[in-house]
């Protein structure tokens, strides 16, 4: 009751001055909440899995093919990536706050900071495409993507990898940091018995040509 009693007058007085803005009853807005989060405040994986399954079925309702479905999952992740970039940077200690200026710095930020924040561990590997025709392609490798933990893909949709959602987050981070890229998720785990990582996923990051052009210019100094 005390909660309600203090809340009412605050809301009433602000309403007159604030022109239609409605404050929460306890007077606390998003600006009153701290940006830092303690290490222990993790979310339950079960509730995430439940939510994620709903996201997939929502995306699946209005699509014609697997590519379309992956595109939609990608789009769901994109805004998260844009926002995570600034959030994780401000959580860094002030001395080490730095904007990623080159591809390697950006990918390291994704591999270490983003993965640590989302999944509680780093990504397993970071590779550059060995094919000389595609110098714009980089690969982030996750042996066991957390988002796929409870996803069993039906045989007729074997092309699908629901980590397209995570690919969308990565794409959001790259776009936000002014390294426009296309990111796609591919399953590469073998199907035979005794395979160590059957759910192994490669996130293929393909940067736009202007990124490489700029990279070359900066490299020259």
């Amino acid at each position, binding site marked *: 009751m005390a909660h309600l009693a203090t809340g009412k007058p605050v809301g009433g007085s602000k309403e007159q001055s604030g022109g239609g803005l409605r404050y929460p009853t306890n007077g606390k807005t*998003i*600006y009153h909440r701290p940006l830092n989060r303690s290490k222990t405040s993790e979310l339950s994986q079960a509730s995430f899995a439940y939510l994620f399954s709903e996201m997939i079925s929502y995306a699946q309702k209005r699509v014609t093919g697997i590519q379309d479905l992956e595109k939609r999952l990608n789009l769901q992740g994109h805004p998260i990536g844009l926002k995570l970039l600034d*959030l994780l940077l401000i959580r860094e200690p002030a001395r080490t706050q730095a*904007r990623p200026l080159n591809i390697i710095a950006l990918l390291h930020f994704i591999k270490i900071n983003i993965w640590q924040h989302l999944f509680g561990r780093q990504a397993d590997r970071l590779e550059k495409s060995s094919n000389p025709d595609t110098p714009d392609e980089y690969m982030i490798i996750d042996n066991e993507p957390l988002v796929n933990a409870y996803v069993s893909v039906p045989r007729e949709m074997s092309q699908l990898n629901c980590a397209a959602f995570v690919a969308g987050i990565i794409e959001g981070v790259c776009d*936000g940091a002014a390294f426009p890229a296309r990111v796609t998720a591919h399953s590469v785990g073998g199907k035979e018995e005794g395979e160590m990582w059957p759910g192994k996923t490669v996130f293929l990051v393909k940067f736009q040509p202007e990124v490489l052009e700029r990279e070359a210019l*900066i490299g020259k100094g």
Partner: protein
Amino acid sequence: MSYYFAIIGTQDNPLFEYEFGTSKQGGDGQPRFSEQARHLNQFILHSSLDIVEEVQWTSNQLYLKAIDKFFNNYISCFLTAGNTKFLLLHQPTGGGAAAAAAGGNSSSTRSSTSIGANPTSAATEEAVKNFMGEVYENYVKATMSPFYKVNMEIKSPVFRARVAAAGRKYL
């Protein structure tokens, strides 16, 4: 000392603007831009965006310091990781054409000792940096709202009050 602060989105679109004066050295926090010069502030600020794009790839710091100068107007820039620009135009009163235009304003007499009197000094840079840091924190909080998309205008009066408070505290 008068300030004009603006947040510019990734498409060079303004998201937020705020005009204020110094609160240090007995300042009343009111901007003292002359009427003729006031509407130019937006032009001056936006014209420095070209320089921001040049400077941003030479330093990995968020705060890029004073990057541009137009007569008596100094522009400081802070760049977020998501490429949103925080630009602060500061115009010292006393000396220079702009102050002369301001006429016999009472503010010109007290400006000589304020931190703003020398816009490129280390003390000023530090004050602006602290101001920007505080605004950045509030900007990130604003973006945390699930209803906020990148490059949307920030209309929240709470955000405006927070920026005003940071201005009073540091500048």
